[in-house]
């Protein structure tokens, strides 16, 4: 099972859970498993062309998947994948 860390802005789609686990052989499978089991989250991850959104990054461990094989990056048991969102809060 691979672990996916859900960032705060997306937890409203996961009943507040910060961690999602599923069996997946690559990053794409893990993200698809997440959005097929959680309504409303897909459009926050992928655009209409099926590309990852420009305001999120996906990491395997501490490395951006774009430095690996993108969404086709292979996953092993106990791998940790993170979705990193752009957030802007700070002042007001």
């Amino acid at each position: 099972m691979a672990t996916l860390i859900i960032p705060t802005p997306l937890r409203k789609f996961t009943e507040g859970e910060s961690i999602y686990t599923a069996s997946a052989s690559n990053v794409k499978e893990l993200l698809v498993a997440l959005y097929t089991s959680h309504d409303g989250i897909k459009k926050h991850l992928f655009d209409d062309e099926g590309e990852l959104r420009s305001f999120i990054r996906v990491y395997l461990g501490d490395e951006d998947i774009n430095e690996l094989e993108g969404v086709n990056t292979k996953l092993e048991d106990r791998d940790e994948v993170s979705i990193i969102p752009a957030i802007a809060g700070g002042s007001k």
Partner: protein
Amino acid sequence: MSHHDITFSKEELERYSRHLIIPEFNIEGQKKLKASSVLVIGSGGLGSPLLLYLAAAGVGRIGIVDFDTVDASNLQRQVLFGVQDVGVSKAVAAEKRLSSLNPHITIEVHDTMFTVDNARELVKQYDVVADGTDNFPTRYLVNDVCVLEDKVNVYASIFRFEGQASVFNELLADGTRGPNYRDLFPSPPPPGLVPSCAEGGVIGVLPGILGSIQALEVLKVISGVGDTLSGRLFLFDATAFTTRILKIRKNKNNPLNGENPTQTELINYDQFCGIGMASEQPREVAEISVLEYDQWRKDGKEHVLIDVREPYEYGIAEMGGTLIPLATVLESTDRIPKDIPVVVQCRSGSRSATAIRELEDTHGYTNLINLKGGILDWQEAVQPELARY
């Protein structure tokens, strides 16, 4: 001024003695701080600890950009300010507090918005920039102006219980610049997808932690001591108390300084972030001002008031409406009459307008009227004894 020409008075030597006795930092590091200048953009949640620590540590010249005034709801986390500052310009109040904290430094007040028109001129005057802003357009503006003007941008951002920090565009040993915000997030989320602190809330201590990390990184950038967060993204989740550090790589498609730069000037950042675009404008709904509505109540005019906020907001302040949170209005139509006027109300008038549109579209309502400005305007004009939030 080169830091080699810097001297210290007896008072300064005593004040900074705990820096001076750190072997790696010593008087050389302190001279660099005194010779340096930092522009802090935003003096709110992040800016408060950032400014306090930079001033206390002896950064020679600190600029503050903020156009806002201190509000009572700021005091939960903006530790730079006190009750006596409510209603006062943040930049002016900050200057007063910091000058009393450290009279050996210069504080420069820029009581203005940070905009495309003044960004380059302001940033040029300082060595390092620290971004304590609270919205995407200004964050992209800060990033872009720092890249165009070759300045380091010490970054932090927060959302509810989660924080991020990094150091962008740092000058590296090989003469190149480290990654910047555009390498991480080429473009922002559309408006409304990520709520602001005012809508989403923020736990008071979190900006204190992230703003302190920013101050630390500013001191490291200036002194050259240690390894900064350049090329790394620090993440903190306060609920689970987890921290992570991820690598940030340069993106060859970065429009500012990638392989084929396409952007050599600042752009319209509201447009870039999709704010105020024609297609985003929702349909207008019927409105009533708080003064007109007050007259309705005085005249005993028959109507129903529906409050579409959340129960925890109702607990802070309410004006006698029936509580039906926005998410549940469509399934609560049995409680919303069609035969008499129904005034719909929220905090500022935005959610109530959404509720009206949804009810009109799906259930054919024609008697719904939005309370313009919501309970905030009502509090201001009619019921000053209510709490603002």
